[in-house]
């Protein structure tokens, strides 16, 4: 089986890779590019642990073939921090203890980033609906919601 050559941009960096056609974007991110922040939970688009942004839109990287990334811009959790400076969302997740085991956290951070990119001042209800596709079995979501809303306020300069 011939491999496909894919040219894409990942976290702002032009990135090329070779992949077999049946591999998902998540497979390639983790196993080929060693960006292991995105997690494999259900592999069926239910849990959101593999969430990334494609051209600014939130998607499950397990529901996308890696070859489909050709010509598109991907953002993963690895692109959030600037060197040692955590993104406000990451800091607020720590401050509010919005994680326990941490498995869902990369997906929740990217989902929250996608929300705040398009809606800087979401309501609590909007935030809860937005992250309905990110399952967390530890926190009960309350701390996650508080962290996101607090990060949103900081990003607005409040």
């Amino acid at each position, binding site marked *: 089986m011939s491999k496909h050559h894919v040219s894409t941009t990942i976290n702002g960096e032009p990135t090329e890779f070779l992949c077999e056609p049946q591999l998902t974007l998540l497979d390639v991110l983790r196993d080929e590019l060693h960006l292991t922040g995105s997690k494999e939970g259900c592999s069926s688009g239910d849990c959101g642990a593999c969430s990334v942004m494609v051209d600014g839109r939130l998607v499950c990287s397990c*529901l*996308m073939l890696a070859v489909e990334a050709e010509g598109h811009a991907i953002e993963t959790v690895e692109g959030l921090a600037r060197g040692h400076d955590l993104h406000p969302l990451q800091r607020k997740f720590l401050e509010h203890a919005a994680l326990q085991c941490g498995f869902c956290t990369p997906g929740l951070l990217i989902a929250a980033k996608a929300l705040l990119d398009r809606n800087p001042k979401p309501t609590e209800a909007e935030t809860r609906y937005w992250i309905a*596709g990110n399952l967390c079995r530890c926190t009960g979501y309350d701390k996650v919601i508080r962290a996101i809303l607090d990060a949103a306020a900081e990003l607005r300069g409040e």
Partner: protein
Amino acid sequence: MPSYIAPSTVEEAVRILAEASGIAKILSGGTDLLVQLRSGRIKPDLIVDIKKIPGISGIRQRDGAFAIGAATPGALIGECEALRQAWPGVVEAANLIGSTQVQGRASLAGNLCNASPAADSVPALIAARATCVVAGANGRCEVPVESIATGPGRTSLRADEFIIEFHLPKRPPHSADAYLRFIPRTEMDIAVVGAGVAVTLDSGGACTDARVVLGAVAPTAILVPEAAAALIGHTLDETALAALQQAARRACKPIDDKRGTIEFRTKVAGVMARRAAVIAYERAGER
């Protein structure tokens, strides 16, 4: 292991499909297809990704009517203010499919051609008299959405055919649509029953036209003309609503499964049709 190809024109895609030797599957948003690939439920020889075809994703307005590209993701449909204004039922149904992540990819053509009886967008599209443009080796034809699904997982499309876009007609004055579904939670679930209703009113508030479509209560979404007939000529008084509810229940041929029993689905179908009709009626009255 399947091979993958991403044609850049409709004609190229049709030729690839027509010449394919084994099983070819169309890849649009992939939110159903990739799950089925992974589980081994389908084993295609070829995956044909249509998203490189110009215009296959996007919404175009023509004289008040809309053309929605087959691979347009739900999120884009929800962001189209003109479409929300004209066909709020279609938009709310499309936006009920899956999570924010799924909305980033899932398309109307995929929802229709996956041919689940519980597909949310399908009853709303049928109620709105949507059509789809099918491309194939014999050229293109425009067919009603209700002619596509023939049973769970089965469609009327031939191996060389695929849907390139949906058309929604210009909305008549004093008309609107609505879609409602029953799920046992508030988000992220599959319809136990769905109901799409579109109505047109005269200046006195009586229905001059109506379409009532039920989902998840038969092998495909079903148009229920008897339920629509219960509304025509009436304002939504209690008599008309009771007749609508009864006609909706009589049309149900559901299955028993983990989501609901035959008895429950039949009862709830009446309730959903009635509530969707009331919402469509109120929306139409505001226009």
